[in-house]
Each structure stands twice: as C-alpha cells, then as structure tokens.
C-alpha cells in the first residue's frame, strides 16, 4: 500500500477529487502532484473515470412499473402477506374464547342440573317433566305451527337449498379496471370477506371468487353499487341446475342483482333472472314498464317495489315455505370479473 506522510495515497486522491480532504491533506496532495508525474497521471484518470460514470445515460424505468407495483400491493392486501402476526393474534383470541366457553359450560351445566332437580321437587301436581313434543297431547295450539315450520325447515328445506346453492358470475367491463378492482377489494376487506375470496389475476382481467351467505353478498353489492356507473357494461350469468339452463342478464343493475341474490327459492330465483334477462334485452327504456329497472350511467336508480323480491311461483315445482329473505345457511358462489376495455 502506497503511503505518503502516514496516509494512503489512493484514499488521498479519491478524497481529493471528491473535495473531502482536510486542509492538511489537501496540501499534501498538492505537494505530491507537483513532484510525482505518475501520481498526477493517476489523478487525471480517476477524475476522468468519475466524469465518465457520472455521464452514463439514464435508462427510464420500464413502462407499467407503477401498475405492477399497484397489482402487487393489491395482491398483498388481499392475502394479508404484510400481516404475519394476524394469524398469531387470531390464535390467541381463539384460545381465549375456547377457555372462556369451557369455563362457562362447567358453571352452567351443574346449575341446570340443580335447577331441574329443584323444579321436579317444587313443580305443581299433574305436570310431567317430559319435554314438549310437537303436536303432542296437552300442548297449546299456538306452539304447534311454529314447531311444524321448524321441522319442515330442518328436514326438507335445509338439504334442498344446500343441494342448489346459487352460482353466478358478474362481469364488469370498464375503462378503469385498476381503480374498479381496488374499490372491490376494499369492499371485500371491509365486509370481512377476505377468507371467503379467491383472487385470480390475468393479464386482461381480474376475478374475485366469493363464497359466502346471501346476506353478505347483498351487503357487498350495496357497497360496490357506486362503481356501476363507471362500468361500460355489466352482465350477470345465473347458473341453473340443468345443463343449458344458465340465464345471462345484460346491463344488470345492482338492485336487480340484489333481488336475485336475496331470493332463497331456486326456482323463483331462476324465474326472476329469466324475466330480467328478457326485460333488459327487449326494452331499452325500462323505467315505466319493467319489473324493476336496471341501472343507468346517469345514476338514476328507481327503487324496488317492496313485494317484488318474493314473486309468486308459476312453475309446477312445489312451493317451499317462506323462510324469510335472508338465510345465513345458504352459501352463494359469486365470481366478479373486471375486464379492462
């Protein structure tokens, strides 16, 4: 290593061209340059070398980098990759709830047993301790229908609906796919549907495969209704149980979609879908004659008549009892696809 007055000469020259030397070091370099031609030449080369590096052309960042970053962030947001502690804290909460439930059960079960013993001792004469049976002797008339409905639901409607879950595909065509996609992702996140959603990102389109209850789908649609006007076109395909029985509703409005998802009876649901498909296709001006109008870009959204969500059945299928519009046990498969124009 070459030294001059206790300093490394390479470091002195390097510091000299960067203007980083003390006064004493600066003077030392000046002295070296005057007396050593080789060092003088070396300094010239280092200076030129630095100028050359500094003048190298600057390549622009690749086109689409910003979009790529956004896509990665969206994916990360959906998969919660940036929250590795989330699972851990959820596990701690789960353990706490399990312990709390166990403790509660240990307290409540002996109390119930004690209560039953006390009741059997102090109960009035002539009353049996057997549990009431639907339609059984000695029951008041108002209990029976409630129990009958419950039994019908348990035995018939539960399996029937489970065998016919609604499967549908909502397609949105838009000139601003990234922001629309971002909006939908936020809505999915806000509705706690991340665990029920599978993201599929292709070069030309992004799909969200959501599997959850009808209530939650309806809520999600309410939250994303604002994007309707920013889509060039929208269609909903409702998949029937028979091959070839799918119904595609063009230019569907959010309200129309909600009406279909809220319908719990599969046959009625397909009937609504078919009527909407005809209506949206045939009549460009649907505001007066339609069953309920589809959305328009102007933002005018007619409200639904209250009775329209549960139309009368005209098919030959046996009608199931009305269980209310929202049934949490029926899961819906909805695929929302955003396609860029």
């Amino acid at each position, binding site marked *: 290593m070459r030294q001059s007055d206790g300093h490394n000469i390479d470091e002195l020259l390097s510091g000299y061209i960067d203007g980083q030397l003390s006064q004493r070091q600066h003077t030392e370099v000046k002295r070296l340059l005057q007396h050593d031609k080789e060092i003088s030449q070396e300094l010239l080369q280092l200076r030129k070398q630095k100028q050359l*590096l500094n*003048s190298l052309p600057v*390549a622009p960042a690749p086109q689409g980098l910003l979009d790529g*970053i956004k896509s990665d962030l969206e994916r990360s947001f959906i998969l919660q990759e940036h929250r590795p502690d989330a699972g851990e804290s959820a596990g701690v909460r789960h353990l706490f709830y399990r312990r709390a439930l166990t403790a509660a059960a240990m307290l409540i079960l002996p109390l119930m047993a004690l209560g039953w013993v006390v009741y059997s001792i102090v109960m009035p004469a002539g009353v049996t301790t057997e549990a009431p049976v639907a339609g059984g002797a000695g029951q008041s008339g108002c209990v029976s229908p409630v129990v009958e409905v419950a039994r019908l639901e348990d035995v018939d409607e539960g399996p029937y609906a489970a065998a016919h879950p609604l499967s549908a595909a909502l397609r949105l065509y838009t000139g601003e796919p990234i922001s629309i996609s971002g909006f939908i992702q936020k809505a999915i996140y806000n509705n706690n549907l991340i665990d029920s959603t599978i993201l599929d990102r292709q070069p030309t389109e992004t799909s969200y495969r959501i599997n959850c209850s009808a209530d939650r789908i309806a809520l999600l649609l309410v939250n994303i209704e604002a994007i309707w006007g920013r889509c060039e076109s929208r269609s909903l395909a409702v998949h029937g149980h028979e091959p070839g029985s799918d119904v595609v509703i063009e230019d569907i409005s959010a309200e129309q979609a909600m009406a279909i998802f809220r319908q719990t009876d599969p046959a009625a649901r397909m009937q609504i879908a078919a009527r909407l498909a005809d209506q949206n296709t045939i009549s460009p001006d649907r505001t007066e004659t339609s069953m309920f109008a589809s959305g328009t870009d102007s933002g005018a959204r007619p409200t639904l008549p209250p009775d329209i969500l549960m139309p009368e059945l005209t098919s030959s299928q046996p009608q199931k009892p009305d269980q209310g519009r929202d049934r949490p046990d029926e899961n819906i498969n909805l695929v929302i696809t955003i396609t860029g124009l």
Partner: protein
Amino acid sequence: MTVQKQLENISIDDAVLVRRCQQGDSEATERLIVKYQDRIYNVILKICRNRDDAAELTQETFVKIIEKIDSFRGKSAFYTWLFRVAVNLTLNYCKRRFKVSGRSLDEPLGPDFDGARGQLRSFLVDESAIDPAVLAQKKEIGRIVLASLSRLDDDHRTILVLRDIEDMAYAEIAEVLEIELGTVKSRLSRARANLREILETVLE
C-alpha cells in the same frame, strides 16, 4: 411524464408525501413512486446488470417500502431508506445469482469495440479530450464502462454507483450501506483504484 408533473413531484417534500402515504393517500403513494422510480431502477440496473431483474427488483423495493411505510419514523431521510432497501435487495439477489451461475453475466467485448477502446483510452489519459457527456452517450463506450464496472466485486460496484453515478454524499452512502464514514472513504478509494486497473486491462 410532463415537465409540469416532474416539477410537481420535485416541489412536494418527501416528508409530506410520506405522511400522506401513511394516512392512506394513494395519490401521494403514486407520486413517491413516480418521483423515485427512474433513479431506483438505474441504481439497481447498474448493480445487477440485467434489465428484467432490475425491473422486478425495483417493483419489489417499492412494494416493500409501501407495505412498511407505517413503520417509517423519519429518523433518516426517506430517500436513504428507499435506497437502503433497494441496495440490500439487489445485493442479496447478486449473491443468489452468483451461487446459481457462479460467473458474471457479461459477454466478452469483441473486436467491434476496438474503435471505442481507442477513444476511451485517449479520453482517460489526455487532459484536453472531448466532453465526457458526449463520449458516454456512445453505445459502445457505455458498454465498455459498464462491463468494466461489472467486473468489480459487489461492494465496490455498489459504492461507485452511489457516489459517482448517483452523486450521494459520503454520509448518505454510510447510511444506505450501514457502514462507518471511514469505511466509505477506504472502500471508495479501493473501488476507484480497482476500476482504473480493470479499465487499463480492458483498453490494452
């Protein structure tokens, strides 16, 4: 990008953009990316010498930065934090690549480069030679310089990129590379001396 947009990006202070970004302002996030994407891409490209990998590493850098933006407390400048993440990711990539390939990715410079070699040789030894900015714009000259740079080891190449290409101050380099100021000085002088030797060999 328009000149107006560039001016807007420069005029807004990083600290303001970072604060807005931490509050979930997506426009501020975009502006931070647009403001630094070219510089980060160029630093990474000159260290790793592969356009596709540089694009991917640039993307990874910004994703990492934005994901961790909430943890940024402003103890150092945003700019040095950003460069630290970019350089660390790139150096890790270089180590992995070396383990896989075991050799440099640069192809040898054939006789087509003889003219450029002559020009570069006279530029380096002649005080009255042409403007370096004009010379560096020539494609062959650029290739020779970058090929010479790529023959340095990763640490030396990185410090030359930060100082001589990016014009970073010694203190900023110390922060980015997380080394002492004295180490910056000694490493930089060794890197320059090594590059000078490599250039002499290449230009023979």
